[in-house]
């Protein structure tokens, strides 16, 4: 299968390694050295550790609402790894693996979920936009960033994400249509994790797959096994290269499964069977990639255990560093609405401060 010739109408899923970790398309194994492979696997393990710890902190009453990524690590890490340093990432909200690949520090990520806006302020040079809660609205920003690149004649590209539920939104249509019309260098990843909170993918669209929607916009669409990191990397890399050459956007459907809840406020047992979840557990992207790497002598069980331990300690340390030290500064609530604070706002701040200080 040549990705350049892929036809989403045929409804074939692009896969490089099968769920048991065996190479299915040997000549599609990407040219990555052992260090790169270890980095990818480590980042997937890091993603899972951050998730597991966050859920446990949340149960202990130490973390607020959190959206877990369990089961989607390959879709996120594999796609984001195809970018170059100057490229942009425009996330929705369930892209932890992609954030880590793009250099977002865990401290930012936890700070955001802990309820402080400073979590969305990225370190210099990290071209990752803040979380966008309104579903699919961020796709427009990605298209606009790419349009600006064309106007400025800059060659960096934009990777953006949306869920299967988001494809029902008007903004999905508008963003893809604009991107195509203006040849915006954007790669749209649909993380099709089969559920929009409780609503099944089957209810979102009667389209046989989501990737084929690309056809009507005049752009390539690829249906990819989202739990196969090599397939995700190859498909995204092909799309990124195409965008960088000025050939316009691509739509990638990452076919995956949300093994966890929508957020910590959700109870998935209300809307899906354990048997279905069990089937998908067998396709766990971390198990699959781990089997492949062990088979090919890149890592062994000892490396995996040590890495997990090391990551666990790092995550614990980072969380504890923000836990007691992340309340919002009063002035910060006011001072970032405009470059210069309007008199009305200054007056409200002053009045409240005066109240806090015991009144004049």
């Amino acid at each position, binding site marked *: 299968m040549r990705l350049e010739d892929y036809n989403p109408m045929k409804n074939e899923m692009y896969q490089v390694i099968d769920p048991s970790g065996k190479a299915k398309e040997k000549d599609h194994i990407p040219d990555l050295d052992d260090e790169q492979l270890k980095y990818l696997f480590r980042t997937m393990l890091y993603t899972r550790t951050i998730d597991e710890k966050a859920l446990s902190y949340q149960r202990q009453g130490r973390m607020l609402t959190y959206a877990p990524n369990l089961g989607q690590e390959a879709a996120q890490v594999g796609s984001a790894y195809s970018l170059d340093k100057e490229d942009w990432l425009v996330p929705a909200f369930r892209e932890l693996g992609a954030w880590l690949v793009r250099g977002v520090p865990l401290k930012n990520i936890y700070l955001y979920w802990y309820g402080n806006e400073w979590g969305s302020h990225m370190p210099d040079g990290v071209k990752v936009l803040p979380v966008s809660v309104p579903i699919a609205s961020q796709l*427009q920003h990605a298209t606009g960033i790419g349009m600006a690149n064309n106007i400025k004649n800059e060659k960096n590209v934009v990777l953006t994400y949306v869920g299967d539920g988001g494809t029902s939104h008007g903004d999905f249509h508008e963003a893809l249509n604009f991107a195509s019309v203006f040849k915006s260098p954007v790669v749209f990843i649909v993380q099709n994790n089969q559920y929009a909170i409780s609503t099944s993918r089957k209810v979102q669209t009667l389209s046989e797959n989501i990737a084929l929607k690309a056809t009507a916009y005049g752009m390539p669409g690829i249906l990819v096994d989202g739990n196969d990191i090599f397939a995700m990397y190859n498909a995204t890399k092909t799309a990124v290269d195409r965008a960088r050459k000025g050939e316009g956007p691509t739509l990638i459907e990452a076919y995956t499964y949300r093994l966890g809840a929508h957020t910590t406020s959700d109870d998935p047992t209300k809307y899906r069977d354990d048997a279905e979840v069990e089937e998908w557990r067998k396709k766990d992207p971390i198990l699959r990639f781990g089997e492949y790497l062990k088979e090919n002598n890149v890592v062994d069980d000892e490396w995996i255990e040590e890495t997990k331990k090391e990551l666990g300690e790092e995550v614990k340390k980072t969380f504890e560093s923000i836990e007691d030290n992340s309340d919002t500064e009063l002035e910060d609530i006011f001072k970032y609405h405009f470059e210069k604070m309007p008199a009305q706002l200054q007056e409200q701040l002053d009045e409240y401060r005066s109240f806090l200080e015991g009144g004049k």
Partner: protein
Amino acid sequence: MANTLSIIQAINQALMNEMKNDDTVVVYGEDVGVEGGVFRATVDLQKTYGKERAFDTPLAESAIVGTAVGMAINGLKPVVEMQFSGFSYPAFNQIISHVARMRNRSRGQYNLPMVIRAPYGGGIRALEHHSESTEALYAQIPGLKVVIPSTPYDAKGLLIAAIRDPDPVLFWEPKRIYRAFKQEIPEEAYEIPLGKAKILQEGEDITIVTWGAMVPDVQKAVKMVQDKGISTEVIDLRTISPMDRESFIQSVKKTGRILVVHEAPKTLGVGAEIISIVNEKAFLHLEAPPTRLTGFDTTFPLPRGEKHYIPSPERIAKTIEDIVKY
């Protein structure tokens, strides 16, 4: 060099000036490129600065505003057009959820130097959705500036200031008076600061605060009552948000009376905010109840009924007299 222009021509000249002065200014929307806009605000921009910087888009307001967010993040200064303010609602989510919030959400990392232009208001005998005054809808949203000019001179200077502003500005244009009169204005670029009202006329007995297309009607009414010995101070608010509160607080302290005239519906409108401020800041100076004269709390009528909706100069004059006689 001076030239004599209408409001719509002044807007076009402001865009021309800023596209010349700043390569990062781009102008786009529905029919703004080849045609130059349904009201001709963007005429000749594409011819002068090319299709890259002045262009037509597919018909989708949410994407017009949403892509402008991306462009502003990526170093450009987009000036986008909503063909009518009544067509801005598909973009409401982008405006409220992102345009207004990006600076705060990112703690100052991403400010959005962008302008959303739209013709607003009634009186042009148009179809449904082409006549409403929506400034209050947007003025309540933290993070947005809302500007409404009333003269060619102000339209040009305020639009240039809006384009140069580091924060997003909604620039609502009074289409009823787009071509009502001309004014001599400088050909080169100049700025009128946002957030500053203008005292159009000083007076002793009553303060009138108004903006946009209501300004000429208020001025007619003021002439009518002048003959009856009433001295009126007229303030053109020019920026709805952030509002120049001091302009009318100081004025009311002098006159003791205030009338707010606007075209938008009365209840929960901008007039209510102005009067609240007066009550908070100048209560002891008041000699009559602060009053609003506005459009009705109704849907804007189709053309056969619109003469009833917009407060006429006669009605404004009568209201002024009633307040002064109170």
